[in-house]
């Protein structure tokens, strides 16, 4: 079972990222759960969302305390919260940032493995808005292979309708540009 | 004192404690509440029907002769008919024992 935690700010699409990841996994015939952090947080506040993916039926409804993967949609969260909290020893943090993994490691003292992508720039260039959730999904899949890139297309099209293509473009660019 | 139990077996109550016999309040005769009763002198009556209209019981009816009468099974003796009568046809008279 793989457990993923998404960090973002209310309105940035962390919850949507989690949902799309779970839907893609379920589409592959796997079992998955996606759930938000159920808080009273509003637009702008730091929020989290969670995903479990497994080949077996998932028989737990605990919150996620020791994720395998953490995805951070907004680089400004790094100085505010410990994004790597509880991360398993072999876990990975997937991060939206203009900086290199080494810069991040020394600046924020993160010891975990890192995958980075300049998602904000990609989102601006492909969609014209700094919404990074689908871009980060590209980075997540590239760096972890937790689901197949193909299985994200269907849920993404269903969710975004007419703007799905732009999101897919951003997603594919992140697949190419993520470094880890 | 007799032991207090219900009047109807629970098995025999209609579903949802519903009353299926609509309007069966008529089985209950409120005439026993009356301490005075309307007595009519139809010589004065010009059959306007005000008594019928204003009776809170709805117990005043028109007979085949065109004159009105109160159904004393229900009349509570409020005296509204006498009060509202235009022609002083109706007098309220104490009930005798």
């Amino acid at each position, binding site marked *: 079972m793989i457990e993923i935690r998404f960090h973002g700010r209310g309105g940035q699409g962390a919850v949507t990222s989690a949902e799309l990841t*779970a839907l893609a996994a379920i589409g592959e015939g796997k079992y998955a759960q996606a759930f938000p952090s159920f808080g009273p947080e509003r637009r702008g506040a730091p929020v989290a969302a969670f995903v479990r993916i497994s080949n077996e039926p998932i*028989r737990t409804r*605990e919150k996620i305390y020791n994720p395998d993967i953490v995805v951070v949609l907004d680089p400004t969260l790094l100085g505010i919260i410990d994004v790597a909290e509880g991360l398993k020893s072999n876990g990975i943090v997937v991060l939206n940032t203009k900086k290199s993994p080494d810069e991040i490691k020394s600046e924020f003292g993160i010891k975990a493995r890192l995958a980075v992508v300049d998602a904000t720039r990609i989102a601006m260039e492909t969609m014209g808005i700094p919404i990074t959730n689908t871009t980060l999904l590209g980075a997540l899949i590239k760096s972890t292979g937790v689901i197949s890139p193909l299985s994200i297309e269907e849920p993404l099209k269903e969710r975004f309708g007419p703007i799905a293509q732009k999101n897919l473009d951003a997603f594919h660019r992140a697949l190419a540009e993520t470094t880890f | 004192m007799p032991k207090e139990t*219900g009047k109807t077996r*629970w098995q025999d*109550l209609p*579903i949802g404690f*519903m009353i299926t016999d*609509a309007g069966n309040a008529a089985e209950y005769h409120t005439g026993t509440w009356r301490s005075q009763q309307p007595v009519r002198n139809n010589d004065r009556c010009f059959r306007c029907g005000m008594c019928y209209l204003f009776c809170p019981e709805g117990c005043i009816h028109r007979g085949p002769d065109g004159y009105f009468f109160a159904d004393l099974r229900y009349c509570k003796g409020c005296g509204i008919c006498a009060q509202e009568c235009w022609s002083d046809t109706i007098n309220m008279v104490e009930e005798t024992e």
Partner: protein
Amino acid sequence: MAKRVGIEVSIACAEAVRLANVDVVPAYPITPQTHIIEDLSQLVAEGELDAAFIPVESEHSAMSAALGAAAAGARVFTATSSQGLALMHEIVMLAPSLRLPVVMVVANRALSGPISIWNDHSDIMAERDCGWVQIFCENGQEVFDLTLVAFNVVEDERVLLPIMVNLDGFQLSHMIEPIEILDQEEADTYLRPHKAAFRLDVDNPTSMGPVGLPEYFSEAKMAADMALKGSKEVVEEELKRFGETFGRHYNVVETYKAEGAEVIILTMGSISETAMSAIDKMRTWGKKVGLVRIRLWRPFPIEEFVAAVKGAEVIACIDRAVTFGGTAGPVASEVRSCLYHLPGKPAVINFVAGLGGRDVTVDDFVTMVDRAQHYLRKGIFPPYELINIAGEEEKEAESA
């Protein structure tokens, strides 16, 4: 064809209501019930559900309109949570008395105060004695399935009572997970077409909700109680038929590795799955632990429950609501009461856990099992205990 889809549990619930082709949905929004009624209102707006969605001004009016609609002969659905259910309470009491088969989903949430939007069972336990059929769901599939089953149960002429389908707020309501969704044709092979058993009819006028004088009141209550008790048989029949139709089998009481278990964890709702994981873990350590899960809460399945716990030494009974100053939480008091006269009955240690969104983890179940055994060894039987309480660490360490 049934489709396995990733779907939010609330949306799956709304889909079941759509398949039941309800006529009237009076509803007032409250977290965490909102997604269910939002989706129903959308289905009505799109013409995918031919129903009147009444956006009432309160939950009190939601239940009032529900009863009016059911009395007029409609199939009615509503949903609520917590404060909304509490505000409804007065009218909740009247639904069984009028024998109106309303289906209501309750996305369980703590009752204030302090105000909390998160999950526990204090809202539903306050409605425990209202005369409704009450069932608890463990996962999204069950929410979808039992919402369908609910219509068949309550509209059965032997029942004609309202039903609450309970699902844990957020923990279930906001969870996206794989659920097998039936199509209309499949659903129709199971669901009976709706026809009101009685209704307000201008051609056959009746009076509903008359005054119950002391000469009749006790018998009216007896009739309502007998109807509720009798509903168990129908619930069982319907679950059986659902299982035969779709291959998903449900019982009024479920067990997991309970056979021969020395310790039984007793749960209701979505924490049951976490409890199973905990049991698997403890079994690898050689602990004889099993799970009994109550699905049908009202009418309480006494025989099935007693049979399920037979032979156990101790029950770690988990309540998700506090009975302040009482002898046990609402579940434990039921359980103790129905075991009281049995020889060789297991001890019942009552833990109050998961209040107002507090997580109940695998480790918590391990702790509760340890403590239940610890108390049994020591011969100490506290009425009930809240667990995971800051300030009670010393006590909690005792049994570790």
